[in-house]
């Protein structure tokens, strides 16, 4: 069967990718521009690294970045633990009482506008402070709690997807061979769902690292995360050091995503091979 090669779809695909990447590339390009006017290229003094130097001398940005990293890491670990539990309960425990409620509570954050999540969590923290005196101050703890609450949903979805395609006969075989349930979980279940845990961890980290709306609600005075600082800066217009910051973040993410996906792929291949060898014996 001969068909005329289609033009429309590939060209729209190319347009789509250009649309996705041009803004990021232009931001990277202008981060080396000497002019304060960001988009007016100062050919005489460019390229320059002066905005990168300015960035590392900016205490406010460094402090905010450090706060964001700490929150993102705590959030990622917390969300992976609780989200995995939720995913397990939903896929493995059959019909238990409260399953419908748990299912709703783990999908609701995915569709709830951030602004409502932020408002409701702040109102909760204020009410709790009145009732039990905790949290006395809003800051790193309240932001982390808020982030965990919406990250759980994403981890639960990823873990559920992994568990649905999971071969339970491996666990049954281990049990038949006399392994204790805890052993089975550690030696069989955990390694098999490990890629899902890594993806969930990375996604939770990114969601937290990126969040501005919810953080703005639940943060207290003096606890500005990096996105909050960037947001208040760019509300006033473009600024060259934000371009430098963006370039560094894009670079970091690109390297991180490529490396982690390569590692995951290798792990999966290795595991598949081990399985084949085990079966062949």
């Amino acid at each position, binding site marked *: 069967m001969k068909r005329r090669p289609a033009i*429309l779809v590939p060209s729209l695909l190319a347009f789509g990718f250009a649309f996705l990447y041009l*803004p990021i590339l232009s931001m990277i390009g202008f981060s080396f521009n000497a002019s304060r006017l960001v988009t007016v290229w100062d050919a005489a003094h460019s390229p320059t690294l002066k905005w990168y130097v300015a960035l590392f001398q900016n205490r406010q940005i460094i402090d905010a970045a450090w706060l964001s990293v700490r929150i993102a890491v705590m959030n990622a670990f917390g969300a992976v633990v609780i989200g995995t539990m939720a995913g397990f309960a939903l896929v493995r425990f059959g019909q238990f009482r409260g399953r419908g409620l748990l299912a709703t509570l783990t999908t609701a954050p995915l569709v709830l506008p951030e602004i409502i999540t932020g408002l409701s969590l702040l109102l909760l923290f204020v009410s709790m402070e009145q009732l039990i005196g905790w949290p006395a101050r809003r800051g790193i703890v309240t932001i982390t709690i808020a982030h965990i609450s919406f990250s759980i949903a994403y981890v639960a979805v990823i873990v559920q997807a992994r568990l649905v395609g999971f071969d339970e006969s491996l666990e049954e075989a281990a049990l038949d061979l006399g392994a204790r349930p805890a052993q089975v979980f550690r030696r069989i279940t955990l390694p098999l769902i490990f890629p899902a845990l890594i993806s969930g961890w990375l996604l939770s980290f990114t969601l937290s690292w990126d969040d501005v709306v919810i953080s703005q609600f639940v943060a207290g005075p003096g606890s500005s995360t990096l996105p909050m600082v960037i947001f208040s800066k*760019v509300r006033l217009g473009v600024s060259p050091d934000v371009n430098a910051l963006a370039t560094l973040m*894009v670079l970091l993410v690109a390297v991180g995503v490529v490396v982690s996906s390569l590692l995951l792929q290798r792990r999966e291949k290795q595991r598949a091979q081990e399985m084949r060898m085990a079966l062949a014996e």
Partner: protein
Amino acid sequence: MPEQLKARPGPQHPGRLITTAVPMAWLLLFFLVPFLIVLKISFSEGILAMPPYAPMIEWTHERVLSIRLHLANFRFLFTDALYADAFLYSVKVAAISTLLCLALGYPMALGIARSPPARRNVLLMLVILPFWTSFLLRVYAWIGLLKDDGLINNLLLWLHVLPSPIHMVNTTFSVYVGIVYSYLPFMVLPLYSNLEKHDPILLEAAADLGAPPWKSFLRITWPLSVPGVVAGTMLVFIPAVGEYVIPTLLGSANQLMIGRVLSDEFFENRDWPVASAVAIAILLLLLIPTVIFQRYNRRELESAS
């Protein structure tokens, strides 16, 4: 955990109980309760105090439990044109952005699904990659492109396409651009996972029977892809209605979306009851698309397992 396996059912096993109870307790405390508080405050009266709302449930001095439902906040939403305008504007912006997203995302998903299998993963990765970089910074990048002395205007002026720069930033147009840009992956991914499952034999049969490509698209590909279209549309429309960052950075200060109105009521006017009422109204507005999405999602999960 393996406790539920046939060999060892043990539904009352402590490990199993903890596994269910921890996420349940966390989500009840930090998700359901906050929502109920918002609901409560939306029926409270605003006062000048900290916190700035009057208690709705209290013991009066005769030891009578008094519950006052203050409906004025909601009445206010209906009578003040500001809110109705913001709601309509948000729905309009979200709907048009969603359609634009579909118009761009559909061919992209189709293009990826029909490219050689080896290339698909790379292309998919390229769609997802921007999603991992800061959303805020990607929206910010558009200011540099769209502003009056930005890249696009400079380029068009330099090429003599335009006599003078066009004003694009801080308009509804730039909000569309920002939303389409930010939510494109959410449209492409569900569409792709649907389109990728289509059997190419159907199209070959249609071509053998003499159908031109546009006809086989309309009669085969499009009808089969409707579930993907529904999922993608909801995933873009729902968050776009409540969007706050994009209209704040790229939109006009005269036309506010409802998310911004909520935030202003809360932070600038310190009117917590009205802000809560706005939140409840947004939720009611989003209830229908959310139910559609949930139903679709459940069906997909069931057909997968």
